């Protein structure tokens, strides 16, 4: 189980633009660094982050090794309907994590 920090308001007015912040524990190993044994440490990064609101994609980001370890992303979305926001991270070595948060739009 990966460690994830998500910051989403619990409620929002309809039409309000809300900020969604998410951070996940991950080394984001670049694949360019030599390890203590002198050999290159193999690349291990998160390649993709996607956010869906009730199943519709609202934001996605393709990451490169230039994203800092423990990737943090903040973005905005228009609150249209109550439901779930699903955040998904996928990457090297079969890394896949999905977290869901509920939001009430009134």
């Amino acid at each position: 189980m990966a460690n994830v920090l998500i910051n989403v308001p619990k409620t929002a007015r309809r039409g309000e633009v809300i900020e969604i912040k998410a951070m996940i524990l991950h080394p984001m190993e670049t694949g360019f660094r030599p390890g203590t044994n002198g050999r290159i440490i193999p690349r291990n990064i998160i390649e993709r982050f996607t956010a869906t609101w009730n199943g519709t994609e609202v934001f996605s980001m393709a990451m490169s090794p230039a994203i800092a370890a423990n990737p943090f992303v903040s973005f905005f979305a228009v609150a249209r309907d109550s439901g779930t926001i699903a955040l998904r991270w996928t990457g090297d070595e079969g890394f896949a994590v999905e977290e869901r948060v509920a939001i009430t739009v009134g």
Partner: protein
Amino acid sequence: MTCRNGPTPLQRRTFLAGTALVTILPAAAARATPEAMAAAIRDVVGNATVREGKVTLDVPPLIENGSTVPLTVSVESPMSEADHVKAIHVFNEKNPQPYVFDATLGPASGKAVIGTRIKLGDSQKIVAIAETSKGEFWSGSADVIVTLAACLEEMT
């Protein structure tokens, strides 16, 4: 009484010239170059013209640790169905690769603002390009000075 502690201007000048030479030489090692960044940008925009403006990069001008650099990219756009930012691409000049991230957004975003934290291997220029739904490309850039590069060796 005159102060004789500091170096004379001439000495300082030769010293600075010497350090400049020393710092330039190792930079030629395997890294992305401004040309590599230009090529990476061409791959994304194709033959379209890229105009400067509308894109703002918010990044500290002086960075102590290149391993974690807060970066916020904001684009002026109404973010309506008819006119919105489709994608934001960020590039760098001197990391091992010219790419930083490609973000996809749309009218459901409401606001074309993205925040993240990046790694920087050297003092360099960061460029962000926004692609709008009308097929226009807008760019913005920021120059940053990095005192300690993103860690090159494994921590023990």
